[in-house]
Each structure stands twice: as C-alpha cells, then as structure tokens.
C-alpha cells in the first residue's frame, strides 16, 4: 500500500507541477501538456497525437493524426499494419457482418438507412518530413482472406523502421460513425466514439507470446473478437459543439470555447491500449472518488437515481481488485450510461472508460447494472493492464475477468443472491455463470483455447466467459483460495503493462502451486489445463451406489489339524455393517475429488480419490449403516456438469418432492381460480 501511495503521490505531483511539457500547435494556440505519470508504466511503443472534430449532424469525426511507432524488435520492419475497425460496418461484405448476419448482442443493424452504416477513410498518409504513402495503402485479410474486408490496412515503407528505431507518420482520416451497433456509433445525439481511428497493430518480436519470428499481429474485426494493442500515450484534441458534454479515456487538461459555437478539449491519456470517448448534451455527470481515483459517471438524466448503483459497485470492485489482484494505477475512471436507443453500446471497456447499462426503474434487487459495471471495470486489468490478445485468446481477458466479476459480486452482495435478489428469486453471480456453462446444449462443442472467430457453431460466449470462470473457481477449490490469490497477484505483478498469453499464465500457476504446495498435484498443473483449457471434455462424477450389509458369520470349511471342518459360530465377527460406496467418473475430465460418507449414527468419514479411474469403491465396517454419501461435499468443483448425481442417500427422502408438489399445488389452484374470473 505504501508503495502505491508513493507512486500515486509522485504522479499527482507531476501532474500538478507541470512536469514533462509538450507543446503542440492547436489551431494556432499552444497546448501545454502535462504528463500524468512521472515514470512511464509501460513501454509506450505508440504515441498518438490527434486533432479531431465531431460533426454531430453528419455523424462524422474528421481528424489529423501524428503517430509515433517504436519498433520493439531487432528486425528492420518494412511494412506497417493498421486496424480500420469502422470499416466492419461499411457493408454486408465485411467479415464482421458476414459472421454476425448484421446482429450483435441482440441488436440488429438497421441496414435500410444509408446513415446507419459506418466506415473510416484514410485520406492521406505519409512519413513526417518524408515521403507520401497514400498510394501504398492496401487492404489485407490475414484471417479469412475475405477480399472485401477493409478492416486491416498494410502500408509498405520506402525505408524500413530500423531495429529499436521509430517512425513518425502523419495521416488524415474521416470516420463516419454507424448507428449504435456493436460497441460504437451514435444514437440521436449520444456518441460513443470507439474503434474510430487508424490504429496500428502489434508488432510481436520473436519470443513475444507465440511469435517464432518478428511479425505483425493485426487481425480483422470479427463478430466475436475484441482487440489487441500496445500501451501508448494519447494526446487528443476534440472540437465539437459547445452543448456537448464529453467523457473519455483520458484526463481533460484544458477546454476552450471557439467563436464558431464549438469548444475544444485537450485530453491526455497514458499507458492505455485504446482511446475512446463519448459525447452527449444530455449527460449528467456525477463525480465521486475512491482513494486516488476520480470516478465520473456520465448518466442519462432519467437514470440519475441509479448513480449510486454505478459508483458504489465501481468502488467495491476497486477495493476488491486492490486487495486480491493489484493496484489500479490510473487517477481517473469514467462510467458511461448509454441512453435507451444506444444500448447496443452498453457493456464495453476501454481501460479507463467503460459503458455500463441500466433502465429507468429497474429494482435494486436486479443487479444487472452492478454486474456490468464490475465486469467492465475488471477489464481495466484483464486486457487493459494485462494486455492479452483478445483476438486469439479471449478466455484470458473475458474468462479471468468473469472469474473476478463473480467473486466480487458474491463477496459484495451475497453468494446466493448477488445477481438477483427480488421477490423471493435469488441467483448468485457465480452460480449463474456456472449454470450458463453447464446448461449449454453441447458443452463439448469446442476447446476453451480457441481464437475468438473459431467458434463457428456457437460456444464463444459460454466457453470464453463462463466456462473459464467456472474452471478458475474449480482451480481455486483444488489449490486453495490463498494459493489462487497468490497466483493472480503474481500474474499481475509480472505481466502488468505487457502482453501475457495462456502459457504465461499456466507457468505462473505451476510456479506458485509448486512453491506453496510442493508436488501435491504432481509436476505442475499442466494436466489441469490440458483438460479444461485445451480439451473439450466435461467433468462429471457420480455417486453411483451405497450398499449396507449386516455382518454375518463366515461360513464354509477350515482346516483344523489337517482336516476340513465347518467354520464354528465362534467366528462371528460381531455386530455392525459392511458398507460399500461406489463412485463413477462419467466425464472425460479427471480431477482429485473428496467424498463425504455419513453414517446413521451421525459419524462422517472423509475420503479422497484421485479421480482418474472410471470407478472406485470405498468399503467401511462400522457399527451403523451408511446413510448418505456425497462427492465434493464442499462444492470445490463447480466444473462438474451434473450436481444431481453427486450425492446419494441410502433411503430416498420423499419430503422434498412432497414439499415442492405442495407449492405447485397451491399455485395451480390459484391460477385456476384467477383464470375462472372469465367464467
């Protein structure tokens, strides 16, 4: 904590003390930029300096951008690649629209209106103080070869960027925003300006993640994919009509009004992977603070009564993350509440800016707003700070984040009622997540560790988000919560502001588990990830049988003095029972399991099984019968897809069915009576 305070104090001091001035010409006036952090938190391989203007009538952002890109490798890089995400919404030929059939998260694209489509045109591109590259721009489709996709642009350079060198590019662009669809666009006068500028891809040097040789990692925009980028610095000057209220990923350092009825904001953000902003004349801004973080909620006026739901859940998340994962370094955080017609942009994350989502009058026991706020805030860590490749390994950011979301929700609002607690209906967030996974029509449809666009027949969401969260909870159940917390903290500390991949995470799991638990789980935990992450099998243990037999005297012959004689009654073993408890492994996944066995006299025996064989039998000789037995009595393995078969009583208890039947009877009689008013 002391380290954090010192770190923060230095940052604020510099922020206030005019450290690191950078002067840029801004419409003839100088902009004194103040650094946010005294020391860079990341490598800052990219630096964007943009001057843009929003035309709210035309739904366009026009801009000029100077990009400085630093080559992180020992290669001479002769080509640059850029994401042009908005071109996904240009027409139905794009890979995004082909994959999605024009629908995303339940929102359909209004394809009938020309104004509903979006695109980005790079109108000029050149090297600063160098040659023009405009005619070198060409579109490529590295993922599916779709020649009509315009979401990735490659540019060959006259002079390669030398190893560890840098290049400054200047470009102008026009970004036409689509009607709100898939995270970005406009709805009336609400704008969520996201994935909106030409964004350079990630050049991965040999050895970074899976790269054998230095190469660009710049995927097309897919229906299910999100993003991957280097941490960088953004200096953005936004001009727009005065009536608009603006929120962004950065800190507004100055604001001036222009004679033409517009205003210009100068915004700076550091060490983030993307820059998004929002504008609306209707926003009501509610400000609060959590420790060093200034929280601003940009709410619709009709949702003002729900400001506390957004802010309190954000504070709960910040506290939990700080305690269980790591420090949130940024001094700012923005929560955007989309309007009714902009809900297609709800639930999205841009490290220091998130979109949440709520409706007027939604009861406090329905915690959708809290869940979304906590989830999106979690992305500040999972893909924001721990900048994994969301295209190729969606399970890292979405899955690990969902794991934390469920933990925070259950911790904050109660394990069995954190998601819904309304009119007697109680649903916990982690049990809801598990139910989504185990309730899949085919939970074996794919392995977890696939690229986002490699789930052509479904399963992307449930496997990337909920299955991952469920096997993370199971991992915590196996290794213990303290070990799990150490794993996550180590992962954060070692990989913050870098690009971790799945094998990096597994290496840390192996390291921490070995350090804390020795060889209890064998040599590392690869066996676990081979099954739950790289395999598609399910986990299902069944308590198959309980048998109790009263001890009987042994019968038959025995040899006495060389003669075979009948066993005498003296061989009576005494009173009591011989009992057997049989377990089956029905699924493909093998996990060590615990078994609780209860006897009629109240005694409980705990047994353990490595879970690898197809079946096992536990035998007991006790004074009383086995009354019940249960696999995984403490619920450490939520990955088990069938909890109904996890337990067994030697005698069925009929009262449960009768109790439920009684409830159904009452409600049925009620419905009959209500229905009969129409007689």
């Amino acid at each position: 904590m002391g380290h954090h305070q010192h770190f923060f104090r230095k940052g604020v001091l510099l922020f206030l003390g005019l450290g690191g001035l950078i002067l840029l010409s801004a419409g003839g006036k100088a902009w004194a930029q103040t650094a946010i952090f005294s020391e860079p938190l990341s490598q800052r391989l990219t630096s964007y300096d943009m001057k843009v203007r929003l035309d709210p009538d035309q739904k366009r952002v026009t801009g000029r951008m100077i990009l400085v890109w630093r080559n992180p490798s020992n290669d001479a890089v002769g080509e640059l690649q850029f994401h042009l995400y908005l071109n996904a919404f240009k027409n139905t030929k794009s890979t995004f629209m082909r994959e999605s059939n024009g629908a995303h998260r339940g929102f359909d694209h209004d394809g009938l209106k020309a104004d509903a489509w979006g695109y980005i045109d790079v109108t000029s591109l050149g090297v600063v103080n160098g040659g023009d590259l405009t005619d070198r721009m060409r579109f490529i489709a590295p993922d599916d070869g779709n020649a009509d996709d315009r979401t990735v642009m490659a540019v060959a350079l006259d002079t390669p960027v030398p190893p560890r060198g840098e290049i400054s590019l200047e470009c102008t662009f026009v970004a036409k925003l689509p009607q709100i669809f898939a995270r970005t666009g406009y709805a009336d006068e609400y704008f969520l300006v996201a994935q909106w500028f030409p964004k350079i891809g990630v050049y991965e040097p040999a050895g970074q993640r899976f790269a054998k040789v230095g190469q660009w990692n710049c995927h097309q925009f897919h229906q299910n994919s999100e993003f991957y980028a280097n941490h960088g610095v953004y200096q953005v000057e936004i001009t727009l009509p005065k009536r608009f209220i603006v929120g962004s990923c950065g800190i507004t350092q100055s604001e001036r009004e222009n004679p033409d009825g517009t205003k210009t904001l100068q915004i700076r953000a550091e060490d983030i992977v993307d820059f998004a902003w929002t504008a609306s004349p209707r926003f009501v801004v509610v400000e609060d603070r959590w420790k060093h973080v200034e929280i601003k909620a940009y709410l619709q006026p009709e949702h003002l009564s729900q400001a506390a739901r957004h802010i309190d859940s954000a504070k709960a998340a910040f506290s939990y993350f700080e305690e269980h994962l790591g420090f949130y370094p940024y001094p700012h955080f923005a929560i955007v509440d989309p309007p009714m017609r902009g809900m297609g942009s709800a639930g999205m994350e841009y490290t220091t800016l998130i979109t949440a989502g709520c409706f007027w009058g939604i009861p406090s026991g329905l915690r959708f707003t809290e869940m979304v706020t906590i989830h999106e805030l979690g992305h500040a860590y999972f893909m924001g700070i721990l900048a994994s490749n969301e295209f190729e390994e969606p399970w890292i950011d979405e899955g690990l984040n969902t794991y934390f979301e469920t933990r925070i929700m259950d911790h904050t609002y109660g394990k069995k009622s954190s998601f819904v607690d309304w009119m007697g209906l109680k649903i916990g967030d982690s049990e809801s997540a598990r139910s989504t996974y185990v309730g899949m029509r085919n939970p074996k449809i794919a392995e977890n560790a696939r690229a986002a666009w490699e789930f052509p027949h479904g399963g992307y969401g449930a496997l990337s988000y909920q299955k991952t969260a469920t096997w993370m909870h199971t991992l915590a159940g196996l290794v213990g919560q303290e070990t799990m917390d150490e794993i996550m903290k180590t992962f954060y500390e070692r990989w913050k502001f870098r690009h971790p991949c799945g094998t990096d995470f597994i290496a840390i799991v192996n390291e921490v588990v070995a350090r804390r638990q020795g060889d209890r789980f064998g040599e590392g935990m690869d066996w676990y990830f081979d099954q739950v992450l790289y395999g598609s099998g399910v986990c299902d243990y069944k308590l198959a049988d309980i048998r109790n037999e009263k001890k009987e005297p042994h019968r038959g012959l025995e040899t006495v003095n060389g003669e075979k004689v009948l066993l005498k009654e003296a061989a009576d073993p005494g009173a009591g029972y011989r009992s057997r408890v049989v377990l089956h492994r029905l699924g493909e996944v093998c996990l060590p399991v615990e078994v609780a066995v209860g006897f009629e006299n109240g005694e409980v025996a705990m047994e353990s099984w490595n879970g690898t064989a197809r079946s096992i039998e536990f035998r007991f000789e006790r004074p009383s019968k086995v009354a019940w037995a249960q696999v995984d009595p403490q619920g450490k393995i939520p990955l088990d897809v069938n909890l109904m078969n996890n337990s067994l009583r030697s005698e069925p208890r009929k009262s449960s069915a009768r109790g439920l039947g009684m409830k159904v009877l009452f409600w049925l009689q009620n419905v009959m009576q209500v229905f009969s008013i129409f007689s």
Partner: protein
Amino acid sequence: MKHALKTYLSGFTAARALFKPVLFIYASNLILGLTVVLPLVGRLQAGFGQSMLPESLGEGFDYTALTEFLRQTPGLVAGLVSQAWWVMVLFLVLIVFFSGGILVVLKRRENLGVRDVLAGGCDFFFRFFKLFVYMGVLHLLTALVVYLPLMMILKGLAKTVESESSLFFVGLTGVLVHLVLLALLLAVSAYAKIHLVREDSRRVLGAVRRSLGFIFHRLGAVLPLMILFGLTALLAGGIYWMLSGFLTGSSTFILLLFAVQQAYLLVRIWIRVWAYASQSQLVALFTPDHEEQTAYGWV
C-alpha cells in the same frame, strides 16, 4: 354507497348459508389440482431419486438445485404446463356450471344444498356457457383494441422519446385502461348472469344489454360494491401473506402452511359467492318483486 354497503352486508349473511356448495367448489378445485400434482410428485420423486441436492427445493428457492434438476429432467415443465392448461380450462367450465347453480339458490334463498346447486347449474349451464363464449370474444376484442394501438404507440414512441420512463408510463396507462375495461366486462358478465336467472330468460344478449344498462344506471352502487369486494380480496390476501410469512421456510410448519394455503383458497371462493349474493341483492333492491322485498325486509 348506502345501497352498496347494505347489500355487501346482507350478501355476507346469504353467502354464509352456502358453505356446503362453496366447500364443494373448493373440493373440485383441490381435486383438479391434485390430478396434476400427484403424478408430478411421482415424477419429482423419480427425478430426485436418492440425490440430496433437491432437498432444499421443498423448503425454499435454490437456483442451482432447481436448474440442475430441470436440466436432468427434460420435459417435466412442458408436461406440467400442458396438463395445468387443460385443468384450468376444465375448472373454468365447472365454474360456469356452478355459478348458475349458486345464483339459482341465491334467488330462491331456500334449498341451499349441493344438490340444489347442481340442479340449478344444469338448468342454466348452456345459457351461461353461451354468455361465457360471448364474453370471451368481448375480452379478446377488448385486449386487441387496447394492446394493438398500445404496441403501435410504444413502437413509435421508442424512436422518439428519450427516456424509457415515458414508455413505461404509456404502457402502464394502457394496462390500466385494460384493467378498467376488464372490470367492466366482469361486472357485465356477473349482472347478466343475475338477470338471466332472475328472469329465467334464454336471451343471453338481452341479458348483457340489461346488465350494461343496470351498471351504468346504478354506477353509484355498482362501483362501490365492486371496490368493497376488491378490498375484501386484498384483505384476505394480506392476512394470508402475513400468516404464510411466519410459516414459510420451516419444515416443522409445513403442514400448517398447507392448511393456511388451502384455507385461503377456500375463503377466496367464498368471497366470490358472497359477491354473487351481494350483486343479486343489489339487482333485487333496484328491481324487486314482492317476494324479495319481504325476504330482505325492504317493505
């Protein structure tokens, strides 16, 4: 208001004498429920098997236990809904039948046994069933008249209004309008039945017309009486809610809870018969024959 209160109280006295028929109707409600629930309990027991997971379901709501059970018992809910639907239709027809019998014995104010109710029900069943069909069509038309425009208005508004609260209040207004029309139709149906029985008429549509006329001419009495019975039903529901609150979640009081639930259902049927009695007397009050004046002490 005075007439409403007077018939509300005198209806209570009249309905008290109809306890046996009320019990009979309640028993049919219970038996029909049991025809669905008893096989369901068997299926639940088979589905639960000897698993310990569903044990919590008998006592309270448990999302994981419920979803696990439903996943492992496919078709259970669909089967239940299908059976429940037919049982509801059957009970509806039974109530059409019983309401004729109840109104007949209320008119006679003697021979108040179950047999008399059944005989009355037989006499008036086809007339009442015809009325039920007419009123059903009117209910459907009313719903269409209210909700089709409402949907179009909401669809249009969704493109223009800035807050979903506007949609909510417009939607709520539509629902309230429908509730008022629903209450009117239910009153028309009740008074039409009373007119049919009083006049021993076979002209169902004529009875509907007279019922409408009666309601609008005597709105000062009809409406307060309707409100009084609404409040009575609310009071009964409140008492049940309080009692069940004490007993829910405890396996010790499960039988007591069952008794309270069934008592509540019985009381609701009885309140309905009470309403018929009061409504009959309200009609008699404004269009009495000599016999009724004597019987109710209005002469």
